[in-house]
């Protein structure tokens, strides 16, 4: 992907002036190639060489920021087509649309409430998209003002009328909103506005070819791409093309994308948005603020953008399922989130009131944890002693996963609790409890 040291060396002044702190230009080039130095350290480099090197070393999908402060949304820096190749970097931003003909304040309050808690982590939507559906510049500006006054989320300003956009930017321009946007007929005016406020800009083409031309013509670098497609089958094709071409260093497509889930069928609109989240969209604009529609999408985004190389862990603490009491069973497992969710799900499915103790194994599974010495009788005992379970139950019995039956003797000895060997798979928990459990 990057350039070799020798390729970089060709672009350097070759004066060996040492101003960069390296003994020679070649040494500096080698440092650059390995990412240990930055081009800024060379004060003598020519503009032409800087541009050539910058573009060659820039990420295939440019980093673009929307908004300011705590809720700033970052998009781009993507490097792969498949999450298993490395990971997807910046989760798809979810924007909720508000028409300037709606009761903007009420709608925005509703959007502010789209916040969900998942195992101790808070997840929310990211943007409010104010749409100039009235076609009236004054109404649009009013709506933008109301939206800005009522939410901390960055705004997407949706109008293809430069006059309306100008008015809206007078209100919101200082907060780095996304201008949405430019097309073949208003490109110059919109680019001017974007430059004036140094704000990110959506460029929409009627198709991929027009999009590429407009991007070239714009000469602007803070861009979000819209291929113009709106039907899900075509959006999938365009999203795939844009990502593939960006990775092949086709520069006009080296920016994040925006998609619009505007399917008139409300359920299919959510389904389409799911496809966009899985398939490379930088932003997906939704026309619903129903939490039942948004919760699945936020969850999907969380899952797809999980780093596959880093196991995700749940917090290692005492969890309650149902309404457990002093006679309820106590399940010991690991804090690998998938493991924990399997146990929790199957305990719930069996309608068992129980306690679950996910021991901190750095988020790895039962057998891996055991093999790596992270799921040991010592660690389990430590958790049993420190989590307060002894005050919650009157019995002294622990249920451990069947896969690590071998731990039971030592664990019993160290903890002083009786150890029951549970099923190997969590699916067996309901029947195990039915047959084997009595406090």
């Amino acid at each position, binding site marked *: 992907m990057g350039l070799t040291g020798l390729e970089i060396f060709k672009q350097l002044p070759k004066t060996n002036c040492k101003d960069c702190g390296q003994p020679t230009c070649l040494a500096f080039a080698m440092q650059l190639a390995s990412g240990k130095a930055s081009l800024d350290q060379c004060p003598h480099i020519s503009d032409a060489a800087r541009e050539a090197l910058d573009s060659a070393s820039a990420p295939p999908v440019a980093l673009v920021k929307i908004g300011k402060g705590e809720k700033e949304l970052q998009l781009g820096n993507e490097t792969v087509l*498949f999450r298993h190749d490395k990971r997807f970097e910046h989760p798809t931003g979810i924007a909720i649309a508000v028409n300037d003909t709606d009761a903007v304040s009420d709608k925005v309050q509703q959007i502010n409430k789209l916040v969900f808690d998942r195992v101790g982590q808070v997840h929310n939507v990211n943007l409010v998209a104010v749409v100039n559906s009235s076609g009236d510049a004054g109404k649009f500006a009013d709506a933008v003002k109301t939206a800005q006054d009522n939410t901390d989320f960055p705004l997407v300003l949706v109008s293809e009328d430069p006059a309306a956009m100008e008015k809206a930017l007078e209100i919101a321009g200082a907060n780095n909103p996304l201008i949405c946007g430019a097309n073949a007929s208003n490109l110059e005016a919109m680019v001017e506005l974007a430059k004036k406020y140094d704000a990110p800009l959506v460029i929409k083409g009627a198709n991929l070819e027009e999009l590429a031309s407009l991007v070239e013509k714009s000469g602007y670098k803070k861009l979000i791409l819209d291929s113009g497609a709106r039907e899900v089958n075509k959006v999938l094709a365009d999203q795939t093309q844009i990502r593939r071409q960006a990775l092949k260093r086709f520069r006009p497509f080296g920016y994040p994308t925006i998609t619009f889930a505007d399917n008139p069928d409300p359920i299919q609109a959510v389904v389409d948005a799911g496809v966009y989240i*899985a398939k490379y969209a930088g932003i997906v604009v939704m026309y619903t603020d129903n939490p039942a529609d948004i919760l699945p999408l936020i969850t999907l985004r969380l899952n*797809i953008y999980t780093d596959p190389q880093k196991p995700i862990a749940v917090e290692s603490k005492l969890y309650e399922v149902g309404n457990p009491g002093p006679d309820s069973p106590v399940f010991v497992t690991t804090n690998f989130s998938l493991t924990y969710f*399997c146990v929790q799900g199957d305990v719930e499915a069996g309608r068992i009131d129980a306690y679950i103790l996910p021991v901190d194994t750095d988020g790895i599974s039962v057998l891996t944890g055991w093999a790596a010495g992270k799921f040991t009788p010592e660690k389990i005992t430590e958790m049993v002693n420190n989590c307060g379970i002894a005050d919650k139950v009157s019995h002294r019995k622990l249920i451990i996963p069947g896969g690590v039956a071998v731990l039971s003797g030592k664990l019993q000895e160290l903890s002083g609790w009786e150890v029951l060997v549970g099923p190997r798979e969590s699916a067996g928990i309901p*029947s195990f409890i039915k047959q084997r459990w009595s406090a």
Partner: protein
Amino acid sequence: MAVTIAKEKWTSKVSEMVLGTEPNTVKVGGESTLPFLHFEGEIPNRPITALEVWDLEPTDWPDILKKPFEGVLNDPVAWAKKNVEYGADVVALRLMSAHPDYKNATPDECAATAKAVADAVNVPLIVIGCGVEDKDAEVLEKVGEALNGKNCLIGCATEKNYKTITATAMVNGHSIIASSPLDINLAKQLNILVTEMNLAANRIAIDPLVGALGYGIEYAYSIMERARLGALMGDKMLAMPVICFVGQEAWKAKEAKSPDDENPEWGAQERRAILWEVITATTFAQAGGSIFVLRHPESVKEVKKHIDKMMESNAY
């Protein structure tokens, strides 16, 4: 500005599986590209939906899931017919009564139920055991015999019980579901073991033991993507269509089971629950899933509507 459409040159394709008997056969697989990239290769068959039928009344299904089957929940034949009315491409009979915790029904009893269901509907049949590996081997042996010649998809065959199930499939002309826990190498290994018994590779469906949205969907998603890439690059032991037991997982999720008043900030249960099942399925469709075993008829309708659209060409 000219844009050269980026197309991959794949060398191979997913194997094509035929289920059921003429004139009511259903085909899956056969794709020579990634999911729904019509601009790049052939997608001769659409992904299909199955609706589950149980041979005993489910006790832990939420009311919104039971409602569409009111009056047929303890009659597998009537339930199966209802599934066909609801538009399922195939019917998935789950022989839960065989489970030692439930009725511990005998293999012969299960075979009789399977036969009755198969005779009552004209769509192909998937028959799944109760999940206890030893018992499933015994049950599916009899079921396979009773359904001889009907070209069903039976399972789930695991590392422990695949021999009996594969033998039954070979003798009686069925295909099998090969299950392995979330690991592409184990999936491949099981496919090799099954084909070594001389069952044709296009009579195996891979079951990677999927998780639902929010409950590990990303693991199965990536396994499916890797399997599809493997298939397209010529790995015959990963080229099988993938079956996803979406319903059983999605309806276990708290987000699907929690009633309206329990978490008001989550929105209405019915819409949320159905979207949970639908999005789990349609996300797997993007990764390469071919057979979606669902539970709610509304989910079948929505998944089919989405697939109709995805099957429209997007060639440039």
